[in-house]
């Protein structure tokens, strides 16, 4: 009996996991192959690839896929690059460094929905108010544009901007601590050799912190592929009509919101999303194995 005491401690966690993680995982695959499943009658009339076929031919899904891919391709490199630059700049100052770090971290602890509304207000153009961003654009001699309900590129821009703003804190923090953990000995050695500071950064610092950079790229990809609440914050819940839906948004709209009640389609879409994320993660890991330097 004593041999099984460990299970007793594990039991609560196992119970939760079994009901809310393992069972649903299996179930979602089953759903995705059940054709014409109806929540109301809990019945279906066939098994096959129909759900996938439907989803892949759904223009909303294509739109969501395009949006998500654009978001990923734009925000991941930009946010990682900016974060690296800022983390690097932070190492060059001593005064006020911890104040800056605290400020930069603030977006991490804010409610995505709530602050997204502030962005919406900043970028929105209404008949009554031009909005802060458009005022700035006018000052610079530009043409004001409604970023929230205007042209696609403007909406995409503000979505990317907000996403970057929201993910930067985590990246800056990770990179700052990675930079801080580089042994100053290397810098001293390079300086003695007369290396320029840009060369030191490229040839010494960057390789040494490359594991952190790759970690951020991988988690960044995964995170951006799962973007949803930032889009909701900016454009509201009716994302399909806005043309600004993301893949996760598509899954939930299929499941529940207006036009919802199709768990089979939602499952198929979720599995497609997961497959894409998994593929990209594996590619990322393979690339990072090749280029990452571990000390």
């Amino acid at each position: 009996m004593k041999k099984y005491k460990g299970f007793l401690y594990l039991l609560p966690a196992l119970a939760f996991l079994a009901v809310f993680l393992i069972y649903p995982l299996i179930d979602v695959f089953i759903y995705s192959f059940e054709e014409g499943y109806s929540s109301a009658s809990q019945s279906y009339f066939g098994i096959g690839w129909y759900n996938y076929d439907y989803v892949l031919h759904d223009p909303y899904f294509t739109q969501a896929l395009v949006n998500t891919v654009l978001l990923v391709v734009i925000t991941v490199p930009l946010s990682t690059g900016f974060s690296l630059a800022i983390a690097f700049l932070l190492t060059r100052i001593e005064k006020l460094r911890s104040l800056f770090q605290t400020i930069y971290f603030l977006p991490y602890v804010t409610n995505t929905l709530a602050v997204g509304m502030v962005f919406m207000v900043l970028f929105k153009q209404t008949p009554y108010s031009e909005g802060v961003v458009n005022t700035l654009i006018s000052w610079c001699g530009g043409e004001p544009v409604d970023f929230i309900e205007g042209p696609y590129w403007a909406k995409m821009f503000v979505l990317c901007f907000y996403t970057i703003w929201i993910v930067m804190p985590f990246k800056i923090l990770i990179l700052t601590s990675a930079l801080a953990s580089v042994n100053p000995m290397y810098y001293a050695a390079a300086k003695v050799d007369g290396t320029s500071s840009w060369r030191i950064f490229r040839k010494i610092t960057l390789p040494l912190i490359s594991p952190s950079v790759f970690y951020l790229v991988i988690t960044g990809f995964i995170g951006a592929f799962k973007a949803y609440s930032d889009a909701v914050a900016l454009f509201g819940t009716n994302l399909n009509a806005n043309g600004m839906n993301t893949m996760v948004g598509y899954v939930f709209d299929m499941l529940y919101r207006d036009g919802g009640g199709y768990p089979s389609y939602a499952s198929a879409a979720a599995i497609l999303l997961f497959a894409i994320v998994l593929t990209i993660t594996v590619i990322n890991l393979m690339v990072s194995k090749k280029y990452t330097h571990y000390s």
Partner: protein
Amino acid sequence: MKKYKPITWFFLIMWAIAVLFPFYWMVLTSVKEYAAYNAEYIPTLFTTSPTIENYIYAFTEVDLGRYIWNTLIFTVITTALMVFVSILAAFAFARLDFPGKSLIFTGFLALMMIPTELVMITNFQTITELDLRNTFLGLILPSVTSVFYIYLLRENFAQIPDSLYYAAKIDGSSDWKFLWRVMVPMCRPTVVTITILKVIECWNSYIWPSLITDDPKYYLVSNGIQQIRESGFGRANIPAMMAAVVVISVPLIVLFLIYRKQIMSGVVRGGTKG
């Protein structure tokens, strides 16, 4: 090196402004009078006559107080349950021996890869079938487990030297007592870390609550704010909206400022958002 200093400062300050400006704007707007705000075609960067009427409005027109209370209950119970369950599981993995342990642990690690989005579909069905929509139970239960936090705790527990465990056995202590009197106090930083990360996660959670509650009585702040955005004050009352945003943002920011060091080092140790 020295000649670059002004540029360094310029960029750092620029980003600090980019981060702080939305916060400034939200506070500023929240204290502008409704009429004054709507009269500004070109927004002004400050106000001479701050008012708290928007805050009163935010609490009276919609049930903001209830949303905050709901979120508080949801956060406290979910976090407490999660911490308790995770501590037990981490202890079993780190300290106890039982048949199939390494196999089960490998399974656990594999589960870390599963995105919550994938399992939410079935969880939605499960909760609906159990008739738990619009209940706290339905909100809390699927949010309790976190494989990642169990993993984080286990790694920390495993660092406690074996000799302490043996010493406690010799001292006549049971496993249960050893866990709570020695292990948990010694790993307090990690326990605090996962608690804080979970609190942030709970406070900001949106997708699951939005699926499982459509009765405003059970709205959390995220849904509440979304509700306000869609219909609450009518679209035009931006100052009242901003007041609500301030109210729901403040608790986490205060928490962050108090536990700044722990939160930041906790996030470095392996937290990811959401």
